[in-house]
């Protein structure tokens, strides 16, 4: 198990950079490093970062790892040759899908390309009813036939998904056991081992995805494990999941589909934890990088979880029915390009200059004005202090780009054009933040926004003003926040079982028994992850809806209420959530229960930042003219170094606060106070 007081390390492999954050519980020392991601040999990034940070694996007590490996295999379509075994009559369910064309007027729309060809899809002559009753038993000779067909197909992986296996997985389990015994080199995924929830296409797609990415993901995790052991590492190695929890390497090898969205998720987990410690349980996590901005809502300390999403885009992607931290992403990042369309409208993105060629001011060949260039033009980002002065920015180039490409054609002054770019960026990001808050019935005024990513702190206060969010938090290490989140994540595993019945007819004794069964599986997972009993807990949720509806709400339920058959308590909770989410609740309408979910959580030791040290150096390092209000006249604003601000220090806007990889912009009326543990807490002024 995790030792208190040890050295905890997290390494997050992202698209461009690999980040490491290490925390020594005994000394309170935080260590960070960054290296370029090495796509050809992803795991090398782990060692590059360890080397840069001067950490030997044998000294680490735990290493948490998040990686884009699984999502890359899927997006690049470089997974295993996969076979699929399904119930007779459903061979084409995976190819047919839901038949929809979300881009309604786009006649050239293309539906997702199946990862398994029809010729490698085999039918088993078995059938259950929706209630789990066996209508056609599975015969031994049929299993033999399937094994032979899979063998002959040359598949490296096989997915098995039978109709109604959520109700009774016995047939799937039997086929799975026989396949594993007969074809030990073939990677086998059974739908009920991933998700026991109805809707055969989405469940099949999830199962196929897991099988498809399985062999290579398993190999990847195994390689890192072996190399760590070879380096003398004896601590606990964990893998970050899309759901915001961590899992053991053994679980990851079986469930690689759970590790698809690790990076951004880490940031949300850290936002929840940092918010909680500062006394903010309602937090809007906001991260802005080079290409996109991402936002997610945390209410009462709980991150929002979606029970499914699409890999490769909402419209033409593969559905995956697996819990993921609910993040809304919008194409507005520091590298997003501002342009004028052929009708004279000022547009932002979705094209991004990314890191190559990057914004004009990066001097890497970029010629199109970006959000970052606009910030440089306005003086919000300091041209000489970027990355602590390591990378002087080309302010003249940025100015020429904004003036030439935007200001001239639009007949706008330079500051006005640059400010316009930011206004559009902020409006876009505000819409995304509204998407996770207002549109789901949450009032942003009751939330604090925690801003991260290189570009997050530059824009956060402006967005907060737009949405009347009263408080903005800039945490420590805002540009390493995902890795930090991985250090703060608990062990987590989600289980679901479809149980379809009117709530009033639900047999709570039966539900209690399902809970016990799922919790027992969770118990084993927590055992394997080395979580001590005192740190284990189990959450229960019911998926409920009005009779006749299709979309269900996930309603947290107290285990006591399940044990005591307390229908009223469950009902009251549903009405409350429905009312908040949709603005109305029909308290007399009967409810139906669809699924029961159990989430097993193993708490991991929490890292705690040391108190911010007072420094003798003057924090105010100078001043420069900055455009803050969209007019042509800049205001002379103070410039502060964040590293020199001690706990309790107070800074008032207008000003900018610079740190190594980011800059925070405060407007007139904003007041920033440094928390005891170093976070900057900004009281946003009234507009």
């Amino acid at each position, binding site marked *: 198990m995790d030792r208190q007081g040890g050295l905890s390390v997290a390494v997050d492999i992202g698209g461009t950079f690999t980040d490491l954050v290490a925390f020594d519980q005994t000394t309170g020392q935080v260590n960070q490093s960054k290296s370029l991601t090495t796509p050809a040999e992803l795991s090398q990034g782990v060692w590059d970062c360890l080397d840069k940070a001067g950490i030997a694996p044998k000294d680490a007590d735990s290493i948490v790892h998040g990686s884009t490996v699984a999502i890359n295999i899927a997006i690049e379509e470089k997974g295993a040759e996969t076979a699929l075994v399904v119930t*007779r*009559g*459903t*061979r*084409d*369910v995976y*190819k*047919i899908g*839901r*038949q*929809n*064309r*979300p*881009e*309604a*007027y*786009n*006649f*050239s729309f293309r*539906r997702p390309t199946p990862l398994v*060809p*029809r*010729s490698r899809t085999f039918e088993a002559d078995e059938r259950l*009813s*929706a209630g789990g009753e066996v209508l056609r038993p599975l015969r031994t000779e049929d299993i033999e036939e399937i094994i032979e067909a899979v063998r002959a197909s040359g598949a490296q992986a096989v997915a098995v998904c039978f*109709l*109604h296996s*959520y109700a009774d997985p016995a047939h799937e389990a039997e086929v799975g056991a026989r396949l594993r015994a007969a074809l030990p080199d073939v990677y086998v995924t059974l739908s009920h081992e991933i998700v026991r929830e*109805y*809707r*055969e*296409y989405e469940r099949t797609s999830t199962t196929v995805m897991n099988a498809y990415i399985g062999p290579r993901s398993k190999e990847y995790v195994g390689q890192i494990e072996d190399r760590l052991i070879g380096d003398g590492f004896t601590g606990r190695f964990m893998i970050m999941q899309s759901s915001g929890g961590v899992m053991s390497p053994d679980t990851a090898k079986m469930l690689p589909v759970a590790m698809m969205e690790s990076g951004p998720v880490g940031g949300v987990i850290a936002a929840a934890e940092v918010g909680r410690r500062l006394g903010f349980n309602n937090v809007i996590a906001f991260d802005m990088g080079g290409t996109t901005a991402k936002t997610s809502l945390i209410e009462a300390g709980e991150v929002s979880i979606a029970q499914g999403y699409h890999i490769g885009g909402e419209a033409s992607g593969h559905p995956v029915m697996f819990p993921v931290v609910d993040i809304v992403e919008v194409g507005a990042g520091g590298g997003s390009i501002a342009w004028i369309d*052929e*009708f*004279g*409208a*000022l*547009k*932002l993105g979705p094209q991004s200059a990314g890191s190559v060629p990057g914004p004009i001011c990066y001097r890497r060949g970029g010629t199109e004005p970006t959000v970052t260039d606009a910030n440089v033009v306005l003086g919000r980002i300091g041209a000489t202090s970027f990355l602590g002065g390591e990378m002087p920015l080309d302010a003249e180039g940025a100015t020429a780009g904004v003036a030439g490409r935007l200001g001239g054609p*639009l007949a*706008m002054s330079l500051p006005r054009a640059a*400010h*316009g770019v930011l*206004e*559009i960026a902020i*409006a876009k990001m505000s819409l995304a933040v*509204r998407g996770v808050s207002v*549109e789901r019935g949450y009032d942003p005024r009751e939330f604090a926004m925690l801003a991260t990513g290189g570009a997050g702190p530059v824009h956060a206060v402006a967005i907060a003003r737009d949405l009347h969010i009263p408080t903005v938090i800039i945490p420590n290490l805002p540009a390493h926040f995902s890795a930090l989140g991985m250090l703060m994540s608990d062990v987590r595993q989600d289980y679901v079982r*479809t149980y*379809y019945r*009117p709530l009033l007819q639900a047999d709570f004794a039966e539900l209690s028994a399902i809970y016990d069964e799922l919790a027992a599986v969770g118990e084993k997972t927590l055992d394997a992850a080395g979580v001590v009993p005192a740190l284990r807990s189990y959450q229960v949720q019911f998926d409920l809806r*009005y009779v*006749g*509806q*299709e*979309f269900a709400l996930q309603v947290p339920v107290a285990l006591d209420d399940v044990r005591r058959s307390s229908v009223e308590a469950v009902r009251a909770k549903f009405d409350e959530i429905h009312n908040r989410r*949709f*603005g*109305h609740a*029909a308290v007399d309408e009967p409810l139906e229960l669809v699924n029961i979910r159990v989430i097993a959580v193993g708490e991991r030791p929490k890292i705690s930042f040391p108190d911010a040290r007072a420094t003798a150096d003057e924090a105010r390092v100078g001043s420069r003219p900055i455009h803050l209000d969209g007019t042509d006249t800049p205001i002379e604003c103070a410039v502060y170094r964040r590293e020199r601000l001690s706990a309790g220090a107070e800074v008032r806007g207008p000003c900018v606060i610079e740190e190594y990889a980011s800059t925070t912009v405060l407007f007139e009326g904003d007041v920033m106070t440094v928390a005891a543990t170093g976070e900057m807490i900004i009281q946003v002024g009234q507009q």
Partner: protein
Amino acid sequence: MTPEKTPGKTIVQKVSGLDPVTLEVIRNSLPAISHEMSVDLQRTSYNMMIYEVQDYCTALLDTEGGLISQNIGGVSHFVADLGVVIKDGVRRYGVEGFFPGDVLLHNHQATAGQHLNNMVLYTPVFHREKLVAFAVVRAHWVDVGGLSTGFSAAGAYDPWSEGLQFDQVKIYEKDVPDEKMIRFVRDNIRYPDAAMGDMRSQLAACRLGERRFVELLDRYGPDVVQRAIVQLFAETEARCRAAVEKLPDGVYEASTYLDGRGGGAGYDIHAKVTVSGGDMTIDLSGCSPQREGGYNGRTYAAAYIAYKALTAPLDPLNEGAFSGLKVIIPEGNMMMARFPAMMSAWSGALPTVVDTIWRAFAEAIPDRIPAAHSGSLGATFSFSGNDPKSGRGFVAMSIESGGWGAWPDRDGQDASMSVCQGDVRNAPIETIELKTPVMVIERRLRQDSGGAGQYRGGLGVVTHARALTRGRWNANSGAGGRITCPPWGLWNGHEGKIARTLTKAAGETEFSKPASVAMVGDPGSEMIYETAGGGGWGDPLKRDPERVLRDVREGYISADAAREEYGVVLTTDGNAVDLAATRARRTQPQLQGAQ
């Protein structure tokens, strides 16, 4: 055909005087409102026609019926069709006749022009005590009374036998619900719980739209928002005109037809399209006049859908999206039917009309126009009755779509919703079986249903179901009148296979053609729905034999079809192309003549 033009750069006259930044922010905000209304409605609705089929639209309209914004996604034939309802309401009540808290219902065919299930619910939006807009949700109620449930209104003979007509009825006045009216509606429709639940969801979505629009007005001021809307309409129009300018000028025509319903004479479908600079005219005067039977409506949808797809398919919808288009449909035409005309199958002809408009363009822009798609709204697999276990009424329903036509550069999509149905989804087998006493025995792709061609038409779907209790089957094939005019091929591509249904009574062993479009089924009775495939593009003898081989190995086409339609002979083990035999076969005169 006229020589190709160089599209001139269209500059929008800056009508609003607004700065481009404010304009861009409002441009992004307006579609977000109708989208949020849509998500809200879909998530809280009670019937699968809304949550799965997405048979609804959500929109904001100005007080003159101009479309400020509309959701995109679900059923596309609701495109920009609400203006006429709002204009009618304003004409009836006057701008002064609406009050905060009013809620109106409307489905009357004289104006709404669609089948009665499509219930429009709308609310006036007030800002600083002034009527500024309407929030509108049109959604398919499961039942509206009449002779039967569902949209084919089996057996109906006039508009009243199709269901209840609501003619601009204020069901709430100043926030006070008209309880008598609501009671009356409840008592005169089947499944009142579902309909009343949907009405609640529609109202909630309208309220949301009101709030969001008022927030926007508060923030930028009504004058700025108003000017922005006018500017956005103008820009949208300019974008569409610019796309039309890229098409060669000329007059293009195509004729197809639909079978008559109930054995009557067929319907002529004729599209005459004129392109002149940035102007397009779609003249549908050559389509049949209105008549008995349900293929009547009052709708520009077919022309609008075809135009939108050719101009700016991914852009948001507003009033400007069709300002550059002139549509000619005379009164009395099947798509401009005078009341009283039955409209139960109002949209049935639309996919064919869209396809026909497209076909008219085939010579003008051969590199952009695909062969015909299945051309109907798909097969509606439906079985309804009373569930003996729960004692409640049930409807098992799923829309099963067909294949799309092949493109000039690739095969058609298999099993994809029609041009009118966008994000409509089929119902999962497990959902059907969990909720209703029906068993789905099979859902598969229909081999050989895609028209042969250098590029092959997409495949249709076969869905086979069994009743587990007594109830009523919909036995309509969903061919939508496309029996004698199957999905056509282009440039010597072959046509796709037509749709059909087959049925088998309990205890029988053989399937046969159903005797009527609605049938009582006992437990054990079965129904098979087969949807049409898309047409092929180009000469099948030019299809790469390796692709033909792959299609055989994947089971998309049979070895017979490979030989007979594509002239491709496989080796005896079926694993390779017999090149010599294929060469010989492809030059045989009878195969050449088969086209």
